[in-house]
């Protein structure tokens, strides 16, 4: 029991504290004026508002004003989510009595035993106005309290940089809009535009020219300027039906509203579009403005011939994604490539376009080998940093491992070096050659060189030589006697050459001469050395019908040879003997 009591006490305490804390923080007592400046024929409404009930309210003396009505009291009290809000208002309607500056002094009130005071405020009363605000027509009030504004995110964007235009309709709390209709939808010439649909009109609180207003976003457009220079955004015009409160009141004291149609338009806006800087502009720049990532990927890097692979060129990020062409993939011409398939996943938000665009190429290699996809550049202009950025994709090498057998033996184009060589599907990439077989660099050609001319025309010389040779031979053949002499001389030369060398040297000359004569006979008569005597020689020669004189000469010579060994012989004699020997030999030769 004790415990239960304790819990109750604690909870009561806590509750009391929270209530107290709330009350302490929130006590306000304010004076609100409907306007600070007014004409002499206008009226002023003064409200004293407090958020907690108080007693003993003492209004200020409204010097310079006459109280037309009041004080009238209104109390509102509500509980929202367990939080109580309370307000109590004393209202006065005043009419100025003179021109000039007046001050409405403090009012006091006692709340929870404490005295609160409002702040004093100055009022300026001017000469009478033509149309006192209280008597303004519904149109005038609507004019003053309804504004259509086009908010442009950036008035000096770069070419192709996203800007947003937001159309807001500001409505003062004193009037209410019951309907609106667009009269003229702007065409955004020289802009690429995308409307961002406004699905629900949400009234929000904001300020317009320092006064509290409610506003509604009617239209949001993202624009990409496509031309540099001054571009105009056409105004948006709306026909708005408004309910304007009148000064009349109905039976229950509520205001009577008048309905009126108002045409509002957001004024023309001039956008100064800056051209992209030409300085440092990359050669491959194709109008991409924003902040992007770039990549080239293939679905596989090694495959068999006639299989297909996907090569994807992809740009992702923020910027004018739909407004530029993707860089083209460069592929070896020996690959079969089909038209790329373009895909885009781009969302357009107030910040501009965002997402991915890609080109997907289907590639089918026909032959085995390596196929490099070279690195391709993609350049864009980043309006934030105001610089150009170039991104390069990575080089990819596709390996085709096996060629199909069906295209085997396509053959090597052998005759013309200009033709593209087609690889037979079943041939491998060959290994290097192992035999160096080196030769010095710098070739000299045989054709039109000196040896060439020599070898070409040299043989022609043989023709006259051959002709001359033939003629000479014929001549020689026709001269019979001369021929015989020549023959004998030749014989003598052959046998007596050794003797001739020894001329002047007696001993060896005659030895050589004798030997020569013997040799001659040996060759001519075919006799053996053993049966070699002068008689025998004479006999043999006789048999061969050699005349006696010649035989005598021959024998005489042999005798001389023998005698010379023992007796002195002069050089003259030797010469004579030599000549005689040659004469005799040639004579014998003729006769045998």
């Amino acid at each position, binding site marked *: 029991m004790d415990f239960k009591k304790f819990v109750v006490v604690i909870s009561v305490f806590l509750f009391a504290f929270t209530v107290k804390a709330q009350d302490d923080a929130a006590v306000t007592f304010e004076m609100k004026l409907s306007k600070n400046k007014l004409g002499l024929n206008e009226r002023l409404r003064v409200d004293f508002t407090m958020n907690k009930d108080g007693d003993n309210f003492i209004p200020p003396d409204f010097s310079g004003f006459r109280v037309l009505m009041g004080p009238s009291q209104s109390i509102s009290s509500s509980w929202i989510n367990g939080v109580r809000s309370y307000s109590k208002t004393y209202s006065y309607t005043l009419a100025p009595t003179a021109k000039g500056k007046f001050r409405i002094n403090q009012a006091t009130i006692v709340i929870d035993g404490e005295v609160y005071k409002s702040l004093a405020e100055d009022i300026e009363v001017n000469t009478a106005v033509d149309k006192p605000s209280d008597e303004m027509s519904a149109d005038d009030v609507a004019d003053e309290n309804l504004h259509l504004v086009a908010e442009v995110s950036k008035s000096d964007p770069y070419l192709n940089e996203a800007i947003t235009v937001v159309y807001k309709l500001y409505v003062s709390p004193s009037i209410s809009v019951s309907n609106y209709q667009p009269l003229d939808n702007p065409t955004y010439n020289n802009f690429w535009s995308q409307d961002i649909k406004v699905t629900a009109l949400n009234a929000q609180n904001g300020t317009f020219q320092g006064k509290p207003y409610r506003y509604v976003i009617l239209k949001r457009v993202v624009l990409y300027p496509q031309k540099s220079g001054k571009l105009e955004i056409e105004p948006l015009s709306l026909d708005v039906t408004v309910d304007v409160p009148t000064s009349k009141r109905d039976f229950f004291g509520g205001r009577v509203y008048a309905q009126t149609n108002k045409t509002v338009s957001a004024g023309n806006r001039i956008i100064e579009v800056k051209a992209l800087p030409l300085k440092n502009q990359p050669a491959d720049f194709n109008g991409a403005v924003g902040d992007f990532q770039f990549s080239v990927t293939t679905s596989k890097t090694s495959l068999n011939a006639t299989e297909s692979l996907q090569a994807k060129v992809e740009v992702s990020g923020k910027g004018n994604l739909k407004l530029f062409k993707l860089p083209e993939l460069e592929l070896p011409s020996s690959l079969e490539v089909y038209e790329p398939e373009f895909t885009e996943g781009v969302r357009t938000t107030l910040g501009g376009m965002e997402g991915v665009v890609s080109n997907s190429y289907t590639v089918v290699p026909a032959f085995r080998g390596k196929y490099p996809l070279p690195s391709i550049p993609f350049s864009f202009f980043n309006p934030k940093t105001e610089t150009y950025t170039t991104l390069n994709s990575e080089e990819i090498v596709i390996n085709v491992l096996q060629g199909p057998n069906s295209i085997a033996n396509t053959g090597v184009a052998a*005759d013309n070096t200009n033709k593209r060589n087609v690889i037979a599907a079943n041939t491998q990439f060959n290994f290097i050659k192992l035999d160096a077989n*080196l030769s010095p660099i710098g070739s000299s050609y045989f054709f039109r060189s000196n040896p060439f001319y020599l070898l070409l025309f040299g043989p022609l010389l043989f023709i006259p030589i051959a002709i001359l040779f033939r003629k000479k031979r014929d001549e020689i053949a026709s001269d019979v006697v001369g021929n015989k002499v020549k023959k004998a001389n030749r014989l003598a030369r052959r046998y007596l050459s050794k003797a001739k060398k020894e001329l002047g040297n007696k001993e060896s000359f005659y030895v050589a001469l004798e030997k020569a004569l013997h040799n001659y006979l040996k060759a001519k008569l075919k006799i053996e050395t053993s049966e070699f005597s002068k008689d025998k020689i004479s006999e043999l020669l006789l048999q061969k019908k050699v005349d006696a004189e010649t035989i005598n000469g021959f024998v005489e010579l042999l005798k001389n040879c023998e005698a010379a060994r023992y007796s002195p012989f002069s050089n003259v004699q030797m010469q004579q003997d030599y000549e005689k020997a040659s004469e005799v030999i040639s004579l014998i030769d003729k006769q045998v």
Partner: protein
Amino acid sequence: MKNSIVIFLLLFGFIGSAKDTPVFEQATAAYNEGAYEKAIDLYSTILEDGQHSAALYYNLGNSYYKLNDIPNSIYFYEKALLLAPNDAEIRNNLGYAQQMTLDAIGTLPETGLSRFYKDITNALHFDQWAYLAVAVMFLFVLLYILFYYFRYSSRKRWAFIGSLTCLFVSLVTVAFAYIAQNDFNADRPAIIFADEIEIQAEPNATSDAVFVLHAGTKVNVLEELNDWKRIRLTDGKTGWVASEHLRVLKDF
């Protein structure tokens, strides 16, 4: 004197080969281990020594192919083909390298007559035509002398006809050699080395771009002006390109 120079050159060449062959083998080993850059360095030292061969250029082409260097590999394969025009291995690997290029250039169709004429004159290298001319000339001289020496008129007649035919053939062969050499000199192939290069209409940077070429494309140099070369593609297009963007194949 001349002979002695030739012999000296030959000897020098042998000395050079003797020195460079171990380097070649080192390079082969490096290639086989996958050290392609080292292999390229070694092969290049042989080239700097003034030695070359189809095999050397082919191996360089292979090394560059392995490093995915398209223009260099095509450049060296084409050089190898200049030295060994009918090597199937080189053609095969050149085909692999050409698959990596971006440009596909068609060839102009040739008329029947010009193709026939080209087929004949290019059937042999002009040096081969020259050797043939010399051989046939020898034959002519031999037959003519025989004609002179023969006794019987029938033999004389055949020898005479044969010799005259040989003389005619020899002269025609020289003409073919001449035409083939002219063709050879007019053919100045080059390889584009710039990744992507605009070919200009005039030999200056301010003129219009006619078309775009990519690395590894083979072109033919027609003429030169300052640092610009006029090139022709196999499909007949011509244009000017700065010399620094291409390398001529016949620099030996």
